[in-house]
């Protein structure tokens, strides 16, 4: 049995944490071959080769893979699929764009956001924003899966897999890249951070979000947000935590001015320690919080920041 794992590579750089977590997730399924794609990806491939448990790395370096558009990458994966029973990836937005396309081209179902492997055909995944966990058994010859990073530990490094350069699979010419708007940040990445501080509608403005950021910086944390905070323009979209945003499970999650709608809880309720600061003692966020502080955030957060 063999597994093909699409590594998370952005502009030539390997997302080590996301990729190494997916390696852990699929390790029991068979020999793992990692596929790196990009306009440049030699460095990413070399780095992927150091992840323990990786047997081999394929490096497909071509301009058409530069922005990982779904159509060319899906075609490439399908062209390689003959040798593999499982085709997997970390559940990132890139992979969620690509993998269902791969599955349909192979005439199989996709399993998104898998949180546990029962056996080679049986997998567990959350449904209804994590309000139910479903175990499904696939009858397809090939299994196409994205793994939710927050439930797997990253595989160690120390491996030394071989790297093989492979050619491109042709350009379907259906789409082209125009631009990326990515805010540079010195903070840890949201999905791999050990601490996350999130702000909600209660924070009240983009300007006031600075008090959330100050607390985050004191804790060396990533900054998250509720959908309401993002929709109101207090925070950028890539900070959104929840059912339809990012799923995080840090050691410490601090929810400030967030009511705790199920759609938000879906993205953070597996965090190890949850702190909620909210002025409404009835707020549902307190039902999942280990430590709840009923207070005005404009008093409590600066005080907490200064005392840390």
């Amino acid at each position, binding site marked *: 049995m063999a597994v093909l794992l699409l590594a998370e590579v952005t502009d030539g750089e390997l997302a080590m944490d996301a990729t190494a977590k997916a390696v852990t997730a699929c390790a029991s399924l068979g020999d793992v071959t990692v596929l790196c794609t990009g306009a440049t990806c030699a460095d990413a491939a070399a780095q992927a080769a150091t992840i323990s448990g990786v047997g081999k790395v394929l490096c497909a370096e071509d301009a058409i893979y530069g922005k990982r558009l779904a159509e060319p990458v899906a075609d490439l994966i399908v062209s390689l699929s003959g040798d593999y029973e499982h085709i997997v990836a970390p559940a990132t937005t890139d992979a969620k764009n690509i993998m269902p396309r791969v599955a349909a081209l192979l005439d199989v179902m996709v399993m*998104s956001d898998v949180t546990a492997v029962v056996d080679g055909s049986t997998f567990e995944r959350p449904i209804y924003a994590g309000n*139910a966990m479903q175990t499904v058994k696939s009858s397809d010859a090939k299994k196409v899966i994205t793994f939710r990073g927050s439930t797997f530990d990253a595989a160690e490094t120390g491996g030394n897999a071989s790297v093989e350069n492979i050619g491109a699979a042709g350009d379907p010419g259906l789409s082209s890249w125009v631009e990326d708007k990515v805010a540079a940040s010195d903070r840890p990445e949201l999905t791999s951070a050990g601490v996350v501080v999130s702000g909600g509608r209660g924070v009240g403005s983009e300007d006031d979000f600075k008090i959330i950021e100050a607390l985050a910086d004191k804790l060396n944390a990533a900054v998250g947000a509720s959908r309401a905070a993002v929709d109101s323009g207090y925070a950028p979209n890539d900070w959104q935590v929840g059912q339809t945003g990012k799923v995080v499970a840090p050691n410490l999650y601090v929810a400030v001015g967030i009511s705790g709608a199920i759609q938000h809880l879906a993205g953070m309720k597996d965090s190890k320690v949850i702190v909620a600061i909210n002025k409404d003692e009835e707020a549902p966020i307190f039902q999942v919080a*280990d*430590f709840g502080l*009923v207070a005005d955030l404009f008093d409590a957060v600066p005080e907490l920041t200064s005392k840390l």
Partner: protein
Amino acid sequence: MKVLVPVKRVIDYNVKVRVKADGSGVDLANVKMSMNPFDEIAVEQAIRLKEAGKADEVIAVSVGVKQAQETLRTALAMGADRAILVIAAEDVHTDIEPLTVAKILKGIVDEEQPGLVLCGKQAIDNDMNATGQMLSALLGWSQATFASEVDIDGDSATVTREVDGGLQTIKVKMPTVVTVDLRLNEPRYASLPNIMKAKKKPLDEKSAADYGVDPAPRLEIVSTVEPAARAAGIKVGSVDELLEKLKEAGAV
């Protein structure tokens, strides 16, 4: 240009989900059902395209049980021109897999020849995030997922996508499949006169067999259980007490 909008009937997003005691699934009997929130955004976008003179006709489609009629009537009341209901299940608890839905939608696309399919990014019941991508693959079309901005210009569309790192803008060839994200627009409410008018708009009823599609699932549901509950926490009285507790827990 015709625009096709697949809309799914799902549990209302405000309803607390209950897992059935026998582990067979989630209890959907006598529960409030609504249009998948992302699909409302897709319908809204399609209507705006028509209002802007970029689309001539908006066709809403739903695949599922007979009751999905109500979802289609909502789309018609919002402003869709006509609707197609593909009955593929009898029991409201049967969820039709994205691959099956995509195959049926392909059959409809072959018949109707739309220039654009606007799907939701994700159904809030199965949380698959797959159908639009699968349909695009089956059609051999371009795809633009998780859209927060869509600009159609003749034979191409420029779409801004919400991705992990921020925003990405791509240009796709038409015809195309776009899946919409939450910030694309604010869907309108249907007015009472429009709800009345919607009752007279055409709603065709079809079956999966009409498109030669076998709706048998590829994934067998082995069990559905409640997620592990978190142990109850405590309320702290001050920032100092919070800090003390966090230190005890080794969290700071």
